[in-house]
């Protein structure tokens, strides 16, 4: 077993708004080992982004507040750290790349300036050192004629190239942990393939751990080692990538996998959608968050929220039902009811 790099316990983030309290993240616990790729999967509003933003306390407050939890990164508790000390970790030992490369770069600064900024801040380099390193980084992420593009502005780059610049910025200080929040969602598939290939290569070369946030179960299958599935601010299932796809335990994961068309499907089968609507995060979670949409719901699901428990080796699931019963029901009954 490799060493644990990040250990998150009972992390809870809420937003106190005019409409009420938004229960964005409701006590999630997980860990990331050194050099490992962990994917966090969920739909919009599942708390996947807020969950990782909370790790490095990047939550606008007010209205947001991390109300509970502990985040230990490389032996250090981040929740008690002074803002000043945390700033030495953010962008340095924990780097982040965001979904939209169009809006997360500053349009009035050159690409070179945006990369050298963190180098000068965190690595105390001087101008010429940081420029040299910036060129190296741009070459590393595959930008042709890197030296001459350093003085270009973001609008002079295409979407895929901008995302490469974001990655170069993320990597600038040799982070131990890279958090990638839907980094390929805004990109075309051929460019997405380029970026995934690049990140995977860099992970192997530089030995960093990656948390990859996405809603795309296809991307996850190709690159992650472990997968965490979130729904309504809870982790509802966590497993190694092979186990999760071969033996999903939670009805939501099962439902997601049945509802997406596959490129390699041999026969055209009717998709089985998950009925109903995503949950309203303003409601105080009391029962299982998936109960209103679950085909396999029982009385108990409405009374108590199931805890995340070990169901097999390295496999956690939060469901009152036994998976073997669910599988039997699936085989017996007609495949789900359409809306």
């Amino acid at each position, binding site marked *: 077993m490799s060493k644990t790099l990040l250990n998150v316990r009972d992390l809870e983030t809420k937003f106190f708004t005019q409409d009420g309290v938004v229960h964005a993240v409701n006590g999630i616990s997980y860990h990331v080992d050194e050099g490992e790729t962990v994917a966090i999967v969920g*739909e*919009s509003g599942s708390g996947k982004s807020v969950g990782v933003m909370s790790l490095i306390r990047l939550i606008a407050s007010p209205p947001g507040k991390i109300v509970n939890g502990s985040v230990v990164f490389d032996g250090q508790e981040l929740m008690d750290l002074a803002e000043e000390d945390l700033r030495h970790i953010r962008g340095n030992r924990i780097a982040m790349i965001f979904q939209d490369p169009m809006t997360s770069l500053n349009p009035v600064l050159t690409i070179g300036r945006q990369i050298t900024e963190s180098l000068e801040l965190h690595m105390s380099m001087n101008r010429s050192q940081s420029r040299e390193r910036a060129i190296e980084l741009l070459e590393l992420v595959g930008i042709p004629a890197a030296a001459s593009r350093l003085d270009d502005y973001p609008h002079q780059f*295409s979407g*895929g*190239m901008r995302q490469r610049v974001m990655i170069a910025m993320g990597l600038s200080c040799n982070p131990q942990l890279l958090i990638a929040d839907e980094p390929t969602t805004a990109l*075309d*598939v*051929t*460019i*997405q*393939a*380029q970026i995934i*290939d690049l990140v995977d290569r860099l992970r192997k070369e530089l030995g960093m751990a990656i948390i990859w946030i996405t*809603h*795309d*179960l*296809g*991307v*996850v*299958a*190709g690159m992650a080692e472990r997968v965490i599935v979130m729904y309504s601010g809870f982790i509802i299932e966590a497993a190694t*990538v*092979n186990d999760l*796809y*071969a033996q999903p335990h939670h009805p939501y994961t099962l*439902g*997601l*996998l049945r*509802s*997406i*068309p*596959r*490129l*390699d*499907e041999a026969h*055209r089968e*009717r*998709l*089985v*959608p*998950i*009925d109903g*609507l*995503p949950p309203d995060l303003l409601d105080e979670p009391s029962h299982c968050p998936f109960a209103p949409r679950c085909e396999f719901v029982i009385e108990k699901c409405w009374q108590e929220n199931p805890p995340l428990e070990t169901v097999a080796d390295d496999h956690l699931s939060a469901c009152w039902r036994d998976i073997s019963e669910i599988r039997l029901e699936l085989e017996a009954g007609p495949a789900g009811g*359409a*809306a």
Partner: protein
Amino acid sequence: MSEAANMNGSGEVLLEVRDLKMHFPITRGILIQRQVGSIRAVDGLDFDLIKGETLGLVGESGCGKSTTGRAILQLHRPTEGSVRFEGVELTETSGPDLRQMRRRMQMIFQDPYASLNPRMTVGSIVGEPLDVHQLGSSKTDRQERVRELLEIVGLNPYFVNRYPHEFSGGQRQRIGVARALAVNPSFIVCDEPISALDVSIQAQVINLLEDLQRELQLTYLFIAHDLSVVRHISDRIAVMYLGKIVELAERTELYENPRHPYTEALLSAVPVPDPVVEAKRQRIILEGDVPNPASPPTGCNFSTRCPKAMDRCFQEEPEFRDVGNGHYAACFLNEE
């Protein structure tokens, strides 16, 4: 390229597109504008739509797939070429005649948030096409029809007096579908109808579109960038790159036997939600980006990124031709 006619060999042709071009002018100057170039968004398309089929149109952003949909419906007037729908040449039709034709062809838009007027109730959104085309003879007729339409798309008819913001993304897309169905069209252009929706909701809308097609004998042009979805819903698929169709084939044939290097790369880049399959797949990583449509490369449009490009590809443009069994491709590799 008249051989492109009746590509399927069977079935009645509903829509015939020949050498369709849509160029947007680039102008310079403030008082006196002169044209200094043009963006070749769509640059010579030939295809047919068979009655009752779904033709998928895939390609990456900026390849001209949405412009194609709009040019067919005459929302953009094509620069050149012919669009025949039910035997009528649309490019030469205008005014009341065109409006008459528009009853037969409708569109569903990508963004269910931007494509519904926030100040109109669901009832007036769905009922508006009825007024425009003077269907629904009386007020009660109209109300009856609106309720019926909402029911068809799986919405509660009691919602007629609500506003779009009271609905979720998936429900709004259903409102968009109801509006398109109001005038009993035979042909619907679906422009990325599920891209803005959550994964668990996408399947609901896909199933709805499939059910409606069967019940109402609709013909779809399904525009999307997600190949898995397109393969699922389409009978035939056309792949676009930089304003041109590079390949067109039946859905399984295209997947199993791609005859254009771009299709191959595109197929290999689409992730499959199965780690066992993913571990075995060989991914073709294309270099670089799509060229600027204002100055496309000479020769084959794909030559700048093609891993199999030959000298010839940089000089001549390959013909879009039948390579067997209604499978069309534009690549010199198919010539031997």
